[in-house]
C-alpha cells in the first residue's frame, strides 16, 4: 500500500524487535469477541487511475457552474476566484500543517490569521475578529450564545428575513438551553423589517437581523441598533453576502455589536455547501466572550515580532466545563483563502466587484420587471439578489430555464409559504450580459408560449 512506507516484512521485523511474535499481539487489549473475523464489506482497493475515472464520472453527474449559468445565491455565491488563491493554498506548508500550537514553527499560519482578523475588522467596521468559525449559520448560533453570556438574558428576536437555514440552526443550538426565540416578520410591501415593529424588551439578549437580507434587501440596521440598545439588548448583524460590504456602510458604523457572516464569497468555491467560512467580529469589550480561536501579536526575548494563539483560557484548554464554546478545529485554510482574496482585490477591487454585482442585478431585475406576467415582489433597495413574482407555476418557469442550461433561481415557497409564486434570483460579476439577455429571452418565450 503506497501510503504506508514500511513494507509488510519491515513491519514484521519491527514487531519481532519489540519482542512480540505477531502484529495481532498488539491488539490484545481489544476483547476477542469484538475482533472482526471477516474483512469489512467494502469495495476492493482501486488503482489511482480507476479512482480518478470514477470521481470524474460522479462529478459529471452534477450540473455545475461550469456548464450551467448560475442565478442561484441564497447564502452561497458564485464569484470569480483569482488563480493565485488555489496556487497559494495548495502549498503543502499551508494545507498539510496543523493548528499552530507551536508558534516558533507555525508563524506562517499565525501571521496569515492575524492579517485575516485585521481584514475582517476593516470590512465590517468592528474592533476584533475571531479566526474563523465553521460557517455563517453556526457562527450565528455562536453569536446568539455569546449574547446570552454578555447580557444574561435568553430572549432573542430573529428577523424572518434571516436565512431560513440559519434560523433553524439557531433553533437547534438554543432549544436545550431554554432560549425564547421570537420571529420579527417582514413588511409584505418592502420585504424588509419595519424597525418600529421590532419591540425588544428588558429580557431581550439580542436582535438578529440580516443585511442584505434573504430577499436581497438592505435593512435599516442603524435604527434597529438604536431600538435594541434602548433596552440594553445587543444587535447581531448577519451578512451572507460579504461582497456587499465593498459598497454598503459597514455594520460596525451602524451600531452592530456582533457581526457574523459567511465568508465563502471571498475566494472560497461553492463546493456544494462546504467547506465555508464563519465570520465573527465584535467590539473590543466583548472579546473575552468571543468564540473561536484568536491570534495575537507577541515578541520574543530579542524583541522580534511574532504571533501566537491567545486568550485560550476561554476555550477548552483550561476550565473546560466553563469553556465559552467547544470549537476546536475550525476553517483556517478557508480563512487563508479569504485573506488572500481580500489582499488581491484590495479596497478598489472589492468596491468594483460589489459595483458590478449591483449593476448587473439591477439590469436584470429591470428587464424581468418589464415582462408580462413577471414583476419584482418587493419594493426595496437590494444588492445582488431580488425576488421575482410570476403568474405561472414557479417550478415550470425554473424548469424551462433549466432546459436552456440556466439555473434560474431558488423557489421561495419551500421557506416562505406565502411566497409560493416567487423565486429568488442572484446575479454576480461572473455572468456576462449575453447571459442576462438570454435569461430574459427564455422568460419571454415562456410568456408567449401560453
Amino acid at each position: 500500500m503506497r501510503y504506508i512506507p514500511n513494507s509488510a516484512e519491515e513491519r514484521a521485523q519491527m514487531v519481532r524487535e519489540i519482542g512480540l511474535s505477531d502484529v495481532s499481539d498488539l491488539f490484545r487489549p481489544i476483547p476477542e469477541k469484538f475482533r472482526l473475523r471477516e474483512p469489512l464489506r467494502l469495495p476492493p482497493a482501486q488503482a489511482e487511475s480507476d479512482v480518478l475515472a470514477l470521481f470524474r464520472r460522479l462529478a459529471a453527474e452534477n450540473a455545475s457552474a461550469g456548464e450551467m449559468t448560475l442565478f442561484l445565491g441564497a447564502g452561497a455565491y458564485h464569484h470569480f476566484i483569482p488563480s493565485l488563491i488555489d496556487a497559494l493554498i495548495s502549498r503543502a506548508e499551508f494545507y498539510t500543517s496543523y493548528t499552530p500550537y507551536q508558534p516558533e514553527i507555525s508563524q506562517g499560519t499565525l501571521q496569515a490569521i492575524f492579517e485575516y482578523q485585521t481584514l475582517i475588522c476593516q470590512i465590517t467596521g468592528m474592533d476584533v475578529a475571531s479566526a474563523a468559525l465553521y460557517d455563517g449559520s453556526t457562527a450565528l448560533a455562536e453569536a446568539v450564545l455569546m449574547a446570552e453570556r454578555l447580557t444574561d438574558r435568553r430572549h432573542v428576536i430573529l428577523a424572518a428575513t434571516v436565512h431560513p437555514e440559519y434560523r433553524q440552526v439557531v433553533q437547534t443550538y438554543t432549544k436545550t438551553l431554554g432560549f425564547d426565540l421570537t420571529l420579527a416578520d417582514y413588511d409584505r410591501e418592502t420585504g424588509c423589517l419595519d424597525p418600529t415593529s421590532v419591540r425588544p424588551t428588558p429580557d431581550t439578549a439580542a436582535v438578529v437581523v440580516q443585511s442584505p437580507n434573504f430577499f436581497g434587501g438592505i435593512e435599516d440596521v442603524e435604527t434597529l441598533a438604536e431600538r435594541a440598545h434602548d433596552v440594553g439588548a445587543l444587535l447581531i448583524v448577519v451578512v451572507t453576502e460579504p461582497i456587499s460590504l465593498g459598497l454598503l456602510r459597514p455594520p460596525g458604523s451602524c451600531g452592530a455589536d456582533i457581526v457574523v457572516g459567511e465568508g465563502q464569497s471571498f475566494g472560497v468555491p461553492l463546493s456544494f455547501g462546504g467547506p465555508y467560512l464563519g465570520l465573527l467580529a465584535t467590539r473590543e469589550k466583548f472579546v473575552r466572550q468571543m468564540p473561536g480561536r484568536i491570534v495575537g501579536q507577541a515578541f520574543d526575548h530579542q524583541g522580534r515580532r511574532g504571533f501566537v494563539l491567545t486568550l485560550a483560557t476561554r476555550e477548552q484548554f483550561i476550565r473546560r466545563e466553563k469553556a465559552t464554546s467547544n470549537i476546536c478545529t475550525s476553517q483556517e485554510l478557508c480563512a487563508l483563502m479569504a485573506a488572500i482574496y481580500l489582499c488581491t482585490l484590495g479596497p478598489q477591487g472589492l468596491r468594483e466587484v460589489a459595483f458590478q454585482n449591483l449593476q448587473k442585478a439591477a439590469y436584470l431585475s429591470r428587464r424581468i420587471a418589464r415582462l408580462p406576467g413577471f414583476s419584482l415582489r418587493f419594493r426595496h433597495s437590494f444588492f445582488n439578489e431580488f425576488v421575482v413574482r410570476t403568474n405561472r407555476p414557479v417550478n415550470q418557469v425554473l424548469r424551462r430555464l433549466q432546459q436552456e442550461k440556466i439555473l434560474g433561481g431558488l423557489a421561495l415557497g419551500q421557506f416562505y409559504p406565502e411566497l409560493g409564486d416567487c423565486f429568488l434570483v442572484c446575479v454576480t460579476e461572473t455572468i456576462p450580459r449575453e447571459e442576462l439577455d438570454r435569461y430574459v429571452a427564455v422568460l419571454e418565450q415562456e410568456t408567449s408560449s401560453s
Partner: protein
Amino acid sequence: MRKPEYHVTRSESLIFERSRPGRRAYSLPPLDVPETALEQLIEKRFLRSGPIEGMPELSEVDVVRHYTRLSRWNYAVDLGLYPLGSCTMKYNPKLNEKVARFDGFINHHPYTPEELSQGSLQVIKWLEELLCEITGMKAGTLIPAAGAHGELTGLMLIRACLQSRGNPRKKVLIPDSAHGTNPASATVCGYGVQTIRSNERGLVDVEALRRAMTDEVAALMLTNPNTLGLFEEEIEEIVRIVHDAGGLVYMDGANFNAFLGIARPGDMGIDVIHLNLHKTFSTPHGGGGPGAGPVFVGETLEPFLPVPRLVRTTEGTVRLDFDRPQTIGRIRAFYGNFGVLVRALCYILTLGADGLREVAEAAVVNANYIAHHLKDTYDIPYPGGIMHEVIFSDKWQRPYGVRNVDIAKRLIDYGFHPPTMSFPLIVPGALMVEPTDTECREELDLFIEAMKAIARECRENPDLVRHAPHTTRIGRLDEVTAARKPVLRWRPAEPTSGAEQSR
C-alpha cells in the same frame, strides 16, 4: 549595503505594511450593462462613504511572494514527522486533492435541484454507507463540520432521545483521560459534567463508574482508545453499566485509526460515535481546519438525526429528506464540509478493507516501536497495551530542571514538530507521541535518536534545552504578555516595535 529584506531567514512584514497606493493585483472585465447612478439603486444613507480604510493595495507579485514566504515558516506533514498525539497528522494523499477540485464538485451550488446534483449526493450517501460498515453503526450524518461539532450533535441526539422517553437527565460522565473538547461540548448542550477517574492502569475505573451511574446521568462520553493511547478493555461491562441505568454511551472516535478494520464500535454496543475524517481518513488539516466530524448512531438514536437526511430511492437516486418528525433539527446550513467528504471517500476507495486494516496495524506498530526504543530513556507512566500513541512524561528529566515543554521545543532544533502536551491531564509533564501509519522506519529512528540526544542534553547541559529552540527565525514568544495586553489586529497608527521591523 542594503540586503534584500525579504530573504527567507528574515522577518516578513505584515501585508498591510507592504501596501503601496495605486498597486493592484486583480482584473475585472469592464462592466457590460448600462450603468445606473449608485444613489438611484441604494439610498445614500446605506452606502459607504469611500473605499475601505487600511485595506492593502498590492500587485499580484506582492501577494504571491508574501504568502509564499509565510508558508515557509510553517512545519507541515509533507516536510516530516508531525507526532501530535490524538491530533493525528498523517500523510495527505495528492490524489484526494486532485479529485476534490474537479469542476463538477467545486463549482456545484448547494441549491442545485436534486436531479442535477446526483454526483455530489451519491458521494455523500456512499461515504455514509461505507462509514456505517466500517463503524458497525446503523445510520449517520455527515453534516458536522468538525469533531467538536460532531460531539455537540451526538449529545443533542442523546438529549432528544432521553427527552422523548420523558426526561433529558442532567449530567454527562467524562473520564479524566478524555479529549478536552468533551466537557465543553456537554456544557454547550446544557449538561453538567462529572469526571470519572482512571484506575492505576489508565483505564476507566469501572467501580467508580458504577457508583456514579444514577438516573440523573444522560450519557458516558468515552474516548476510546483514550488519550493515554489505551483501549478500554472492559468496554462490554462499561456499556452494560451505562445502559442498565438508562443512559447512553457516546464514543469519541477521534482515535479510531487505532483499530480501523480490526473491530467496530457498533459491535460493542456504542450508541453514538463521531469520527474525525481528517484524523482517520487522511484529509488535510489546513493549519486548523476544515475538518469534518460525521456522527453515526445505533437504532435508538436514528430517528433524531439532523436534517436533511439522504435517502436512496428505489431507482437508485439519492434525495434529501426533511420529513423527520423527531429530528433535532438542522445543525449547519447546507450539507456539511462536502469537499472534505470527497477526500475521505477517495481514501477509502483507494485502500479497500485490507488497506484500512493495514493502516491500523502500521500505526500501532510504529507507536510501539517508538515506545520500545525510548522506554529506558523517558518515563512511560502507563506502559500496558499501547495502541496508536505513546505517552511519555518528563519525570526523569525534571530533576535537571527541564520540563516537557523544553524537551518539545528542543525537538524543533532536531527538525521535528513537538508532540502534544496538553493531554492527557492526568499525566504531569506529558509528551504524547503519535507517529501514525505513514512514517517509515528511518524517520522513526531519527526521532528516537533525537529524543535520546535531548535526554542526554538534559543531564549534561540543561540550559541548552531550557532555552530551545535555537535554530528558528524567532525564539520563544512571550505568550503571557500577549494574553494580558492583547493586540489582535493591525492598525495604521500603531507604532511597531522590535529590532527587525523592516522599512
